[in-house]
């Protein structure tokens, strides 16, 4: 059980600053995901919480107590590493009980705790094996088991699924969610895969270039991205962005001209816009439909069939690209010409700086 608080945390490697002042409160029992592309600082941030990386400036508080000067061994946190980092010279049971052994716990009690966790993770037959005799999925379970045995204040997970195949990833995602529910412990999960963050986390923190772009529940981020970056990062396939020019501003509506000359009317934002201003229109693939009278026209250059649905990749007449979700039974083929209609209610608008233009009724939590 732990709250973890970051106050204006900065990290510098020499003169080069990689984390630019992050404030964040991770609540007790929360499953929080740090997501961002490589180089966004998500792993560095996690390692600073763990104590494996020094904090250059600012404070890390664990349960309200400053932790910058507490060595990682004393923080009471457990970590699952991307490469698992099991001790190659120890058996699975020894790997799992190592922290208890260091804590001076008697052998009987250690064995008992290891068995209990092994039973929960269904890996009792593996206990006497060495790591090199295990498969990737089994190594991963041992790594999680090792973290669980010591009943830490919080779990820190650094891309724990990225070395697993797709099927195992999906299964382990569900298991981690189940574990979180059963253990009722704070979990901080780092991933570059927005799907993992969306499916598991209570709350997602999107990082970009060492700054928090936005945080919120998965649906909040999906429905109301605060920046162009978040809009493009959350959701797969990613949101379509089209360059548009403001034609006229009404009380409730906004008329935009697309680069092919067609116009589209969308609900007006609260922020002021002037006719002639160039902005970006964002629309998700599932919010574009195939329609003969649609305002966008293009040629299909790729089709991805996923069974229940298909994604159409089209090159538009002005050179921009569009991804459209359609039913799995589509009869369209590569090379066909098609017209598309944007569901104007479901669009997002971004100014030149990439910030979302707020609409009344939408809750945008940008930092």
């Amino acid at each position, binding site marked *: 059980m732990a709250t973890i608080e970051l106050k204006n945390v900065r990290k510098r490697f020499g003169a080069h600053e990689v984390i630019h002042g992050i404030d964040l409160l991770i609540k007790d029992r929360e499953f929080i995901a740090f997501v961002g592309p490589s180089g966004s600082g998500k792993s560095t941030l996690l390692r600073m919480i763990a104590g494996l990386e020094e904090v250059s400036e600012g404070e890390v508080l664990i349960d309200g107590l400053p932790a910058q000067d507490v060595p990682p061994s004393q923080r009471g*946190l457990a970590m699952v*590493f991307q490469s698992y*980092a099991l001790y190659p010279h120890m058996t699975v049971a020894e790997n799992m009980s190592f922290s208890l052994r260091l804590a001076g716990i008697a052998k009987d009690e250690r064995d008992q705790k290891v068995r209990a966790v092994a039973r929960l993770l269904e890996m009792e037959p593996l206990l006497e094996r060495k790591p090199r005799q295990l498969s990737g999925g089994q190594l991963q379970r041992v790594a999680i088991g090792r973290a669980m045995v010591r009943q830490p204040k919080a779990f820190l997970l650094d891309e724990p699924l990225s070395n697993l195949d797709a099927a195992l990833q999906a299964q382990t995602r569900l298991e981690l969610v189940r574990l979180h529910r059963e253990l009722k412990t704070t979990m901080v999960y780092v991933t570059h895969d927005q799907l993992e963050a969306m499916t598991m986390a209570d709350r997602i923190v999107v990082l970009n270039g060492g700054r928090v772009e936005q945080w919120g529940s998965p649906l909040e981020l999906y429905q109301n991205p605060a920046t162009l970056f978040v809009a493009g990062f959350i959701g797969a396939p990613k949101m379509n962005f089209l360059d548009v020019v403001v034609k006229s501003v009404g009380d409730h509506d906004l008329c935009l001209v697309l680069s092919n000359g067609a116009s589209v009317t969308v609900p007006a934002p609260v922020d002021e816009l002037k006719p002639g201003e160039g902005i970006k229109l964002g629309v998700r693939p599932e919010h574009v439909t195939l329609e003969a009278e649609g305002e966008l026209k293009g040629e299909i250059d790729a089709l991805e069939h996923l069974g229940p649905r298909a994604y159409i990749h089209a090159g538009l007449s002005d050179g921009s690209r569009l991804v459209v979700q359609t039913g799995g039974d589509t009869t369209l083929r590569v090379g066909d010409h098609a017209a598309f209609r944007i569901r104007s209610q479901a669009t997002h608008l971004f100014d030149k700086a990439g910030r979302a233009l707020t609409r009344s009724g939408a809750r945008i939590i940008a930092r």
Partner: protein
Amino acid sequence: MRSTWQLRWGLTIAGWAVGLGMFFPILWMFLTSFKTEITAVATPPALFFRPTLENYAAVLQRADYVAFARNSILVSLGSTLLALALAIPAAYSMAFFPTRRTRDILLWMLSTKMLPAVGVLVPIYLLWRDLHLLDTVSGLILIDSASVLPIVVWMLFSFFREVPAVILEASRMDGASPWEELVHVLLPLCTPGIAATALLSIILCWNEAFWSLNLTTVKAATLTAFTASFSSPEGLFWAKLSAASTLSIAPILVFGWLSQRQLVRGLSFGAVK
């Protein structure tokens, strides 16, 4: 097909040639130690002769071999242990907490091996005299461990570097202090490498002659001094010198033979992992 076959034979022959070439002096010394002084210097060299043990008898009568051998064992083991005790923490910190200067420090340490030992003989001699370390086993241990230290640090550094830092981080997260991390994780993982380093250090210290000859006389003299005492300027006693040399290298030769598997395994530690 034909060319790989030729290459294999060529390499085999070359390997044996080099091996025999390097082994021949030792073999010749061994044979000479069983000759009489006259057959030892005969031209052309005598390949067939009646072996005799008289040289060994003479050598063992003239000097207390056991005392020299005991000093050699004490000095080589003591120096190695001391060098390891200093080098393990040094290599650990340089391998896992490198700074901008780590490379420079390593090179500087190695560069000390480029200075001939005789360059510091006078200051060392005076220091050892004032510290009452002349002709003591501990004095010799101190100087021998200092002389193997750069090599020991370098070898350990390269072995430690093979261990992924994340495994040590995992142990830190598991609550290990730096000492526990070293004892429970790093050292067990590097056992082959540490063993190879220790073996090499023992061999180097065993064969070390310069300091033994200059800093000891009777009480702490090692087998290298024992051997040297038979290369007398007044007349050549090849057979006796060979017998003394054979006695000096026999223990380390046997030791090296027995531990060669460990040595090779350790030296190729990184390559096969």
